[in-house]
């Protein structure tokens, strides 16, 4: 299907849905087309190779303050109409929502640049395999590489009877790999961006293979409080989990957030500033959220001071401040989420951060992190794919993986160094941009045998 076919179909579906909703007080329709190709490899060969294409029509209708919703992938006008009728039937049986914030109205989107690369949208399986082959060529004879290269195109048309009408599309290419070697060795690397042309398979493979070679025969290490230098992928885990524990306006208004009662006060080192901005250069994704509200920048931690939370239409209405453009597609019982977090870079290179540690650990990335106590921003998880001992300002040896239990905000209160390079981290499919950090105290509670 061509671009003009896509746009024409979306417009016809919007018209059909809005027409079918004429009995409603308001109708919202979202047409999403997602095409994805994935080349997954293990033991240096392709083992899962996929191409998928789907389009969904999601509608919400409002009737006397009652809200119903329905989603279908029947993209005929009749299918869109049937979805609206199902949503209307559900709305008629639903009690009125006294806090219904209303549908999005007409508003212009801020300039957000081009997030679409046609060659990525059209990427063939051969092109992906060629990049994976470049990666695998860097893997040593005693090593095995596993990973995935994906190319995806998303196009969304959003409209309401209140006058909102947005249309945007974006592409994304992402490559990540784990390279495993003898005697517990394991390295990891990733690259992601709007265009497949920017993905360098050789570079990703070389970085992971080197990290793997550097981690052969990891030494035992004692658990306890350590000074750590966290590489960007590890910092991503902390920042993303603050998104779950602290930055939701809904949890904040309910008193369940790590920021509840703390806005305006110190929560981290003055070196820490975090904001969410989908419009900044380097960010990916669409310029409006799942409720059709334009995304906008929100300062969350400013020089260590808790400075804000993000809102969707419901939480923003309850807080009396309006949406910040962080709503998920409705109906959404989970609340708003910041999907484009940035931790502002500082002044030190990774080597300088390491040079500032007498006794400590360098952590490449974390694994299987879960929230233990959200109000205390307490999380647990494991290190993985490259953990090293630092002595007198130098990386001296690989160590075995450790389990950590830390309060993110308490750990960030002890930050005394921020890296000067911002990396886009995409391993969990997110769009988080962070530098490396040096934290004076990080609590590890156990050590593995690998």
């Amino acid at each position, binding site marked *: 299907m061509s671009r003009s076919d896509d746009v024409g179909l979306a417009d016809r579906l919007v018209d059909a849905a809005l027409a079918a909703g004429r009995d409603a007080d308001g109708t919202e329709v979202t047409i999403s087309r997602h095409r994805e190709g994935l080349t997954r490899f293990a033991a240096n060969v392709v083992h*899962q190779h996929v191409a998928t294409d789907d389009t969904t029509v999601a509608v919400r209708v409002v009737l006397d303050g009652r809200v119903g919703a329905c989603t279908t992938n029947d993209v005929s006008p009749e299918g869109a109409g049937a979805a609206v009728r199902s949503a209307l039937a559900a709305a008629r049986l639903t009690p009125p929502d006294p806090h219904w914030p209303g549908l999005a109205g007409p508003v212009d989107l801020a300039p957000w640049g081009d997030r679409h690369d046609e060659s990525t949208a059209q990427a063939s399986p051969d092109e992906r395999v060629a990049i994976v082959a470049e990666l695998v060529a860097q893997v040593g004879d005693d090593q095995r590489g596993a990973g995935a290269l994906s190319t995806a195109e998303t196009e969304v048309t959003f409209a309401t009877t209140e006058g909102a009408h947005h249309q945007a599309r974006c592409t994304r290419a992402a490559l990540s790999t784990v390279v495993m070697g003898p005697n517990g060795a394991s390295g990891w690397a990733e690259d992601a961006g709007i265009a497949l042309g920017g993905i360098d398979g050789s570079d990703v493979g070389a970085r992971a293979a080197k990290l793997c070679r550097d981690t052969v025969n990891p030494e035992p290490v004692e658990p306890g409080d350590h000074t750590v230098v966290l590489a960007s992928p590890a910092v991503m885990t902390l920042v993303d989990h603050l998104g779950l524990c602290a930055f939701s306006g809904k949890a904040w208004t309910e008193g369940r957030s790590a920021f509840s009662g703390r806005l305006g006060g110190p929560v981290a080192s003055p070196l820490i500033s975090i904001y969410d901005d989908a419009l900044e250069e380097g960010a990916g994704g669409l310029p409006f959220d799942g409720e059709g509200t334009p995304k906008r920048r929100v300062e969350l931690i400013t020089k260590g001071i808790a400075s804000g939370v993000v809102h969707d239409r419901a939480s923003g209405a309850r807080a009396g401040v309006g949406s910040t453009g962080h709503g998920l597609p409705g109906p959404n019982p989970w609340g708003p989420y910041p999907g484009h977090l940035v931790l502002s870079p500082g002044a030190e290179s990774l080597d300088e951060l390491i040079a500032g540690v007498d006794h400590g650990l360098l952590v490449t990335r974390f694994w299987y992190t879960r929230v233990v106590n959200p109000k205390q921003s307490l999380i647990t998880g494991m290190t993985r794919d490259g953990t090293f001992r630092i002595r007198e300002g130098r990386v001296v040896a690989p160590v075995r993986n450790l389990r950590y239990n830390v309060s993110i905000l308490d750990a960030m209160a002890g930050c005394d160094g921020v890296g000067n390079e911002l990396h886009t981290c995409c391993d969990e499919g997110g769009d988080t941009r962070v530098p490396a950090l040096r934290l004076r105290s990080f609590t590890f509670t156990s050590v593995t045998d690998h």
Partner: protein
Amino acid sequence: MRSLETAFGATAQRGVDIAIGLGATYADARVLDMAGERCSVRDGEVEGMSQSTSIGIGLRVIADGCWGFAATRDLDATSVESTARLALQVARSGALLGPAPPRLAPVDPTIASWSNPIVEDPFGVALEEKIALLVAATLTMRAVAGVAVAEASLAAWRRHSLLVTSEGSRIEQRIVQCGGGIEATAVGESEAQNRSYPNSFGGDYGTEGFELIRRLDLVGNAERVGREAVMLLHAPPCPGGVTTLVLDGSQVALQVHESIGHPIELDRVLGMEAAYAGTSFLTPGDVGKLRYGSPHLHVVADSTTPGALGTFGFDDEGVAATCTPIVSEGVLTGMLTSRESAGEIGMTRSGATVRAQSWAHLPMIRMTNVSLLPGSAGSLDELLDGVDDGIYMETNRSWSIDDRRVDFQFGTEWAQEIKGGRLGRVVRNATYAGRTLPFWASLDAVGGPDLWRAWGLPNCGKGQPPQVGYVAHGAAPARFRNVQVGTP
């Protein structure tokens, strides 16, 4: 309900035939028609009421020694033909990196249909009744002084599938599943405490009809759940140390999930999931030799368990549901296998575990109902008897395990001290930690059949792109010795 065989059988067969005609050595086509409904209520107000439908076809082929998969929502014959050609192209591209010819364990061609028995179709129950139930449950929780947020939800799914393979299988299945739960949150100055029923993270789910929801009695449990949330807010932290630990069935189920269910996935054992989900500490050679736990440990992977969320008639490769012994008297006896992975290690039959989240996802090894078989303890009191000093923990709150499935830490919503064989004061923020094999070696008692039930987990994640799997674990309360517990 229409027959998928009648509506799309010829189209699916055409897709398979095209793939074989173009040189594929194997092909299958899977049409999946899915419907879902979800209703959530917060503090007496409907927060979300949604329905969804999705239909499409996924074609899986082997060509030039590699797998290829392509999927489309468009079931028009022309579209299915081009999707079959795309699957071929995808497979042949993979061969550019070097073929890895799959050796598929054989399966008898099967022509069959299957559906799970239900008493009451959840899609047939009036929406007003479902909403009224959830509203009543949340208002009952909110009536407890100190409860800040009360939430309740119900969900139901219907999956209607047709599988056509180049080996002659044609299988049509209709599976109906549903479940739900309630949760109360109490908020203090520096603490927020949750209490859930019947399980956390959405409740309990099964391959059953609405009779499951009625049996749960969400409203009847709401006041207790609210009261316990408030009680937790004022409870002391769980004391630390190495002690005897008694877990309720739902937490045993998650322990089985993370430290037995995932490690025995043969694709993970063979390194196929290394990049994302990690590997396993197990090797194929461990089967029949490795002592996984104490003689009290008996585990099966049983996709025939009536009503359990991981139950089906045939997996997505057309292999009939079966019961595979996994651990017998503490010794590892089996793994979760697909046709490909079983063939790779020389097995003659797949264990029937392969499933996909949707028509657009590649089928892969998933847990079915990986269950700890009941023991002999007739009651929770019997498990507590003789425990002078210990901790009882109930309902998961957090979970984490390393990438080889060895080092784990779990937290629970609810915990009580055990003193002199009896449950004592309530403690909060309880966690326990350990390593897989020593932990299961410390198992010294399991509740009997009256305490055993299947716990449905509708949120098991695996694969790239990530797929959600519906699995279950039969479990009863169980007792473990010398376990590290405490409050992080």
